[in-house]
């Protein structure tokens, strides 16, 4: 009986002096993985035009029905995206989102993507309705 207890104490004792595996967040952060699925972003093309063409496929694919898209026509004077159509309003209710990535899969132009920003905590429930201004990648 004693041998077993001493053996066990040996193991726990060993770990007393090894470096702990805990990451001291927020001072230490881990490098995010390429495929990480957190906050959505609406991406742009190289030339600055928005990728999103307002097709609403992401809205149809979403299992939680948390995306809302209102489309509008591009004019030559005020062109937002290449092609005829862009998303005038784009809204995701982040509380209902389950971060499954089906919207990313459905998007034919790689406009909506899920990226590495996961620090989304907030105080008000209302502030979790992310409208287009919070999702759109800023111009470079």
């Amino acid at each position, binding site marked *: 009986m004693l041998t077993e207890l001493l053996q066990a104490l040996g193991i726990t004792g060993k770990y007393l002096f090894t470096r702990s595996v805990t990451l001291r967040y927020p001072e230490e952060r881990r490098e995010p993985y390429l495929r990480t699925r957190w906050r959505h972003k609406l991406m742009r093309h190289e030339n600055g035009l928005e990728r999103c*063409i307002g*097709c*609403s*496929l992401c*809205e149809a694919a979403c299992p939680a029905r948390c995306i809302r898209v209102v*489309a*509008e026509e591009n004019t030559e004077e005020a062109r937002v995206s290449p092609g*005829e*159509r862009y998303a005038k309003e784009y809204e995701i209710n982040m509380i209902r989102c389950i971060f499954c990535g089906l919207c990313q899969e459905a998007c034919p*132009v790689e406009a909506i993507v899920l990226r590495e920003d996961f620090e989304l905590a907030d105080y008000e429930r209302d502030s979790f309705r992310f409208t287009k201004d919070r999702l759109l990648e800023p111009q470079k």
Partner: protein
Amino acid sequence: MVTLRIDDRETTVADGTMIIEAARGIGIEIPHFCYHPKLSVSGSCKMCLVEVEGLAKLVTACTTAVSRNIVVRTRSEKVKEAQRATLSMLLINHPLDCPVCDKGGECPLQDYTYRYGPGKSEFSDEKWHFKKPVDLSPLIVLDRERCILCTRCVRFQEEVAVHPEIEVTERGRGSFIEVARPEGFTSNFSGNTIELCPVGALTSRPFRFKARPWELKRSPSLCPHCGCGCNIWLDVREDKIMRVLARENPPVDGGWLCDRGRFGYRFVSHASRLKTPLIRKGEGFIPCTWEEAISRVIGGFKKGREVYGSESIRGLASPKLTNEELYLFRKFFQEVAGTNSSGYTLNGDLMIESLRPADCSGLRRFSFQDIDEADSIFLIDGDPSKDLPILDLRIKKAVKKGARLFIAGSAEIELSDFASASPIPVGTELNSVPEKGGKGGFDRRFSGEIRDSKRSVILLGRKTDPSEVESLCSFLKELHDNGGGEGWISLGVLMPAANTQGAQDMLSGDTILNSQGIKYGVPGKSDVPDSRVKCLFIARQEIPDITNLRNHLDFLAVYDIFLSDTARVADVVLPAAAFSEIDGTYTNSERRVQRLFKTTQTPGEAKPLWEVMTLLAKATGTGWDFHSSRDVMREISEKISLYRYISYEEIGMKGSYADGTTSGPRYYR
């Protein structure tokens, strides 16, 4: 009758039926683009190829009629190969527009490609390009790259609307659709091409990019714009009507819609819809609660009654209201206000009297379908193209089949081109004796035609002089009685507004409405308002000369959806519900009662009129037990004998005639 086998199932159909229709009859879908049951056969898209045993080549099911004992296969390997090939060909030049195309999600090309087409593309070249999009008209947008040249739009305009304003031009793969005349694509039925187009080539400009099919909720309703009562679908997103589609009820609308009905919906969600009751303060209004507004109205009436007597209180309703609203309107003014008058007007024209059944006994009550079967059609003082456009399509179709059209008393109208004889000019009285060398009256001129036709349809338009109707009826009755019993004479009135017939029925019930309405500034008739009227309640009606009228009134309350000019001079304004916001019924020109369904929410605190009348009655101490328009209809069916068979269950989704029949000829008795 011919018996044949399709996909191991036997069916028997009439001679001359095309295979595609025979298959549809037993629920077998044969994909098709250019074929449409209501248009002529084109046979050009080659999508409907099927295999007929014994024939070496595949045949198009839309051009091949059935023959006895043939065996048709729609899912054999050869057919599947041909379907894949046809779709591949169509997709070669089709632009990669699905994400931006309005048709996506409800597109036959997409659906057939998924069900019958290849999964991978084998084309790697450059597609043919057009400049796009092109505005064919302010309502229709054309994308030439998407067009698969099925020619349904061109055929529709040519054959059904008889406005051949678009055509195919150029040849080969460079062919495209363009407007065929300098005046433009102005046909009143242009919107139907949008529904006919099997791809996203023809799309609606007002609906452009507003919603995807999966964002829309579809509800049935009726078009509120004319007395046809065409059945529609309302597609709603977030409580706004996004578009209107045809909900085919062939006996009523033939499956089509006119542009007024199709594009006239945006007023419902307009920002200036009245949301709260208003009471007058100085030159303007302040919002108030319903209690205040109601008590103001009752106060105004009570004062009027004290000072001037019951006869000074009048209500003026409009044929835009539903039967239930009109019934309670009359009930209030007759039973509670104690006055026996509530009239309605048609934009200033005096209403046409109801046809007295006794005068026309033996004649057929008019149904739209009578036009389809008639030998001769007589239009008197009416213009269907303006007032009931869908009847215009029906008349054109009948004339194409060989019916003869005679026009009396109207100025040159669009249908004049289709008339078989020159029209009797305006102003000629119907029964006049022919003057020396001149043209005679209706009965003299056309009595021969009516006598010779087995089946005649007589339609009285809105400009018919009411005083002449009685003698016309007796003339027709005499013709019919001497006719020998074969055939029929169908007599009807073209009621211009959505519920003109219903208004007549509800406001006069079984009695004839004589011209008891407000006589005020009616052009040409009288410009002195009825001086007895001092307190007026106007519901959903605009009065052209309201300032003149207002000066004679002590109190004016207006119930409407916008702050119209009429409402602007009122003492109390009540916010109204529009057609898509109420349950109710409309009675169309053939006295078919059809249901409206509540689809969108009333803005703010707007209420349907039957609720308002109930509140008014309650404020005077009279309690009514109406909690829904269904309750009101129940009382209507008890109190108005003409509607005794009507209930919401009876009417269902297709409507039924007021006398309870759903089809078949009805007679005046």
